[in-house]
């Protein structure tokens, strides 16, 4: 089961390159443009690193033919390793799909059945009806979509404020935002639950949604990206008659659309996959989300592995669809990082 902290860890890793630079730049209190170019150069450094794998330069005096052969060999080896990894990652998913189409007895069979000759499609609807999957999915959608929209809005606005506005305690507040990324959810989960209970939100949608309306990752991500927007564009917009709001909506946001799409996807996945938090702030089906439904499915259908597999697939389906549809934006957004003038 996936947990928020793990995902946060990923994102810290991604942001780290530009983050390191920013802290250095910030310490010298360089203007926004200075730090902005820092982001860009972080990106290009990274690119250079990938473009020249170590050892390339050492082959300068090898014959051209041998060099070519060597390159094919290296590439071939790479593909083999990657293919191996792909099998390792893909196999459990494949097994889940296969198992969802088998009967319980076939699933238990040894050696395992690796291809469903007589697929049983009925398990999908059975999982739906027996485990209230429809209700859980609906709840998950409500919670996830609201969280996603709110996170985008708050992150974009806060990222903009940190990148462009001058206000008291700006650095301190930004540090606080970054700090939230470092604190694992487990550390705050108990006090947060008490707060929710005190607010009388136990067993309600606000309990599932409100704690996730803002995102340290998102604020950090967008601040870095927005600082990469050339300063001249801001000045040009000022002279063209646009204030902060229009500069944000007509220039900064459109320019960062790929990154925002990528973040939307990330926010969706994080919210959709939540388990621990919904579990401890709800105890009735009416507001529970699909991941908890999954766990319950396990309890109610101990003997029906096929149902569990089918339900699991159904719960993961929205994520699959989103990933497939937005694959390009995701890759572009994550690799673009900062845009160039």
């Amino acid at each position, binding site marked *: 089961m996936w947990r928020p902290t793990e995902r946060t860890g990923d994102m810290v890793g991604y942001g780290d390159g530009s983050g390191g630079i920013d802290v250095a730049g910030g310490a010298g209190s360089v203007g926004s443009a200075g730090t902005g170019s820092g982001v860009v150069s972080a990106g290009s450094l990274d690119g250079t690193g990938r473009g020249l794998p170590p050892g390339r330069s050492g082959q300068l005096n090898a014959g051209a033919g041998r060099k070519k052969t060597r390159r094919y060999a290296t590439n071939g080896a790479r593909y083999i390793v990657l293919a191996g990894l792909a099998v390792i990652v893909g196999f459990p998913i494949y097994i889940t799909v296969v198992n969802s189409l088998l009967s319980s007895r076939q699933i238990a069979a040894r050696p395992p059945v690796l291809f469903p000759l007589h697929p049983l499609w009925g398990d999908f609807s059975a999982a739906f009806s027996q485990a209230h999957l429809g209700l859980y999915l609906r709840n998950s959608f409500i919670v996830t979509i609201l969280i996603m929209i709110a996170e985008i809005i708050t992150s974009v606005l806060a990222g903009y404020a940190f990148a462009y506005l001058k206000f008291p305690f700006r650095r301190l507040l930004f540090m606080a935002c970054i700090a939230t990324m470092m604190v694992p959810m487990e550390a705050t989960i108990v006090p947060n639950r008490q707060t929710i209970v005190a607010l009388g939100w136990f067993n309600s949608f606000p309990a599932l949604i409100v704690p996730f309306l803002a995102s340290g990752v998102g604020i950090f991500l967008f601040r870095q990206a927005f600082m990469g927007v*050339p300063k*001249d*564009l801001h*000045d*040009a917009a*000022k*002279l*063209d*008659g*646009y204030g902060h709001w*229009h500069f944000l909506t007509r*220039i900064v946001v*459109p*320019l960062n659309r790929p990154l925002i799409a990528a973040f939307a996807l990330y926010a969706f996945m994080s919210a959709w996959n939540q388990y621990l938090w919904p579990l401890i702030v709800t105890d009735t089906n009416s507001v529970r989300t699909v991941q908890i439904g999954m766990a319950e499915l396990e309890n109610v259908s101990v003997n029906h592995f096929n149902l569990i597999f089918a339900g699991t697939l159904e719960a993961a389906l929205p994520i699959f669809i989103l990933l497939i549809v937005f694959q390009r934006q995701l890759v572009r957004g994550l690799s673009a990082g900062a*845009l160039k*003038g």
Partner: protein
Amino acid sequence: MASASAAVALEAVSKWYDNVPAIQDATLEVMPGEFMVLLGPSGCGKTTLLRLIAGLENPSQGVIRIGGRVVNDVDPKDRDVAMVFQSYALYPHMTVRRNIEFPLRSRHVPEQERNRLVEEVAGSLQLEKLLGRKPAQLSGGQRQRVALARAIVRRPLAFLMDEPLSNLDAQLRIEMRAELVELHAKLGITIIYVTHDQVEATTMGNRIAVIEGGRIQQVGTPQDIYQRPVNAFVAGFVGNPPMNIIEAKVELSGDVVNASFQGASFQLPADLATLLRKKEVSSVLVGVRPQDVSIVKEDTVGMGQLRAKVSLVESVGSVYRIICRLDGGGFVTVDAYRDKREIRTGDMVELSITGDMHLFDAASGERLEP
């Protein structure tokens, strides 16, 4: 104190960044329809001055007027100035048309009117065929023209241009230079143009303000500035190649005044001699333009000679540019028209000052004038 007719007027404007002065006590008037060039070396404060006028920076001191109105507290968008940035600052995600009409949209110009204006400007800058493209699909020169179009379409009181041609290649720069001058004449617009390139400045400007170290050193027509530089900095900065400036001691002996330099000494012309007697300066900077120095073999009648060794001979179009190392140290550039005589690196020559001499006080650098 400023005349009300100036399009843009600065009165004793200063700007400090954290106690570091970027602009000090700048006073300048730009007349309507004038092409004013701000010229100076990198870091002298040209951009800062332009940004102060645009309202992108606030002055620490002084008054800025645009069209007679004090604009110190007026937002950039309400100052009625348009700016062309060195980076062009085109909005990358918008088409050329959208870029050009962007300033009109914020001013709620009705769509029909907007289209008419965009088409008109696009026509005058040969951009009609490019209106549907994005900036990334344009060449440097085309981007430059889009940036100009975006500024022109608003019909502002003054155009501020920050090194708008510096990203273009040499050929295109010359073309755009001509295009800008034409545009200026055709539209009768007021332009404040920043550059560090004195060729641009002298060929385009009606007047030039030479800036150095955050201070306006001299304001005048290109001829003024070339012929009567107010101080040694301006003298050395304007003119290509730069003026030769030699520090010399003043020696009064009877009727004659000599400037002596590391052993060599030459007699100063009568008018300058009178001037120096009056001013009682002991040490001067003698400025001579390269074309006012000539190379002589023997001691001729001139005002005195300087011995030097040829260290480099360059052929620049129709002239030979000869760089000589003086006996006492320091270099002198000489522009000689194709000569009867071949001069080669390593030759020993004597230099004679045959044209105008400029004298500056060695201590202050100020021009010495009657």
